[in-house]
């Protein structure tokens, strides 16, 4: 799980690939998560907030799907709807064909902030996932240590959250989302609070983890670069109430590593998304061109 495992090797291979449907690496496109006409309106003290307009979207099994959109467009709302933490005001969310009408447990979730338990060290914070599921944590100890090793925290298993940096905490949270090996991973701006360098490292680590496990991933971010670098498909949202503006297939070969930033497809996709945001007035870049951020 290091930079040198992932970088360099395939810089050129990806260059020639045009944007084509699907990532090419997902052989069968069975639907894992389906949103059919899903809308969400929050009501609070008589005030209605239309967080999410009617949305249709299918996430394929084994797919890495990213959602980008302006703040407040309902990205987190969508993630909570998929997890069954909120219920849709209209339409249906289905996971593996079953309607989501309660909190789902066959998934791992990572929030924007690490959401660790202050009273547990890193290892026990990973294990709480299995403990809360009524499983025997001692049976998962090895695996938890392995995961901590994979996210670069081998020597920090006995540290408490307040002894870890923001990036380390978020890595613990990611390990916690993986320990029970759920088929679906939901990530809500997991790197949002990190500095640029840590963020890049986390992106590389996440890609490698994903390549090793091929889980279905719903990844929310406000970073256009991050979405394009990580995802098989990027869903671009409009401002609130969020609708789907466009879905882009990202055909950059994997592993993408560091080299993908030099890929023509990367430049093209980020440019396209930036233009969409410019057209919507989400970005005001008059006179400037080029990729956001």
């Amino acid at each position, binding site marked *: 799980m290091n930079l040198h495992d992932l970088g360099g090797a395939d810089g050129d291979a990806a260059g020639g690939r045009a944007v084509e449907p699907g990532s090419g690496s997902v052989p069968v496109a069975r639907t894992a998560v389906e949103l059919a006409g899903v809308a969400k309106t929050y009501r609070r003290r008589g005030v209605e907030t239309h967080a999410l307009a009617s949305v249709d979207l299918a996430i394929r099994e084994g797919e890495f799907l990213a959602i980008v959109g302006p703040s407040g467009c309902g990205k987190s709302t969508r993630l909570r709807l998929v997890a069954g933490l909120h219920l849709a005001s209209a339409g249906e969310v289905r996971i593996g064909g079953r309607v989501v009408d309660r909190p789902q*447990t066959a998934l791992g979730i990572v929030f924007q902030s690490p*959401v660790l338990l*202050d009273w547990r060290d890193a290892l026990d914070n990973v294990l709480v996932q299995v403990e809360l599921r009524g499983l025997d944590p001692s049976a998962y100890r090895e695996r938890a240590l392995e995961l901590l090793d994979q996210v670069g925290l081998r020597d920090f298993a006995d540290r408490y959250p*307040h002894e870890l940096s923001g990036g380390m905490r978020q890595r613990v949270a990611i390990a916690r989302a993986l320990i029970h090996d759920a088929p679906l991973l939901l990530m809500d701006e997991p790197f949002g609070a990190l500095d640029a360098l840590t963020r890049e490292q986390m992106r590389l680590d996440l890609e490698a983890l994903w390549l090793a496990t091929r889980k279905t991933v719903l990844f929310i971010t406000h970073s256009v670069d991050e979405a394009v670098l990580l995802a098989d498909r990027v869903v671009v949202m409009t401002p609130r109430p969020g609708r789907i503006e466009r879905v882009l297939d990202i055909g950059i070969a994997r592993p993408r590593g560091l080299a993908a930033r030099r890929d023509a497809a990367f430049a093209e996709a980020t440019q396209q998304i930036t233009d969409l945001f410019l057209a919507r007035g989400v970005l005001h870049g008059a006179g400037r061109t080029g990729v956001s951020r």
Partner: protein
Amino acid sequence: MNTPARSTAIVEWLRRRGSAIAVFALLILVWEVGVRVAGVKEYLLPPPSKVWTEFWKRHELVMAGAWVTTQEILAGYALAVVVSIPLAMWIAWSRFMEQAVYPVIVFLQIVPKIAIAPLFIIWFGFGFTPKLLLVFLLSFFPIVVASIAGFKGADRDIMDFARTTGAGGLRLFVKIRLPQALPQVFTGLKVGAALAATAAVVAEFVASDRGLGYLLLQYNGQLETPMVFATIVLLSLIGLAVYYAVEVVERLAIPWHVSQQHTAHDATM
């Protein structure tokens, strides 16, 4: 065996507390010298040395009174802890309790509890019971209010995470709700502990024939000011001991929280 280790610990303690101790010693010294030089009358402000000698002459009587007061404090405080924490849990979990009982508690909290002390005398007489009840009453509210906040104030994201594990009931309580509530519970426990000594003394003021509050009034009436001071110091020490005991328990129960505060503190220094 571990003399070197212990002596370095003492040195370390002195280094940290040294300045506070020095200031305290200086205050006492200024008091002692100032009173003597200025010739202040003893019944107005006795020098510390006089307080000590007077106390030592009558220490058996005073210590007996201190024991009575200590018992009132401990019993009332223990009762408050035993009642308020389960009640706080109940209010935090039950919608009915929250809607029906919590507002009442918030209202009663506003009532100046000390004003109720005379009533307790009418109801329960001069003995141990009214003191215990006043200590209970004063300690109860801070503990129950802080604990309710602790048990209800579960972090939304943590609870959402927990819901995706399907955990419920006892498991959720033991692994998430209880530990995350403990810091606030202990905040309440410490406030309650600080109030317990005050409550016991006030109850003894109102009506009693023993205890430090009773002695304090006696000495005051006879203008035995050195003994008044001695009694006040003793009361403070009892209050401090109770408070410190709670803090020790806190350190044992939630070391993660305490050390977290310390790191934050170190960082700002």
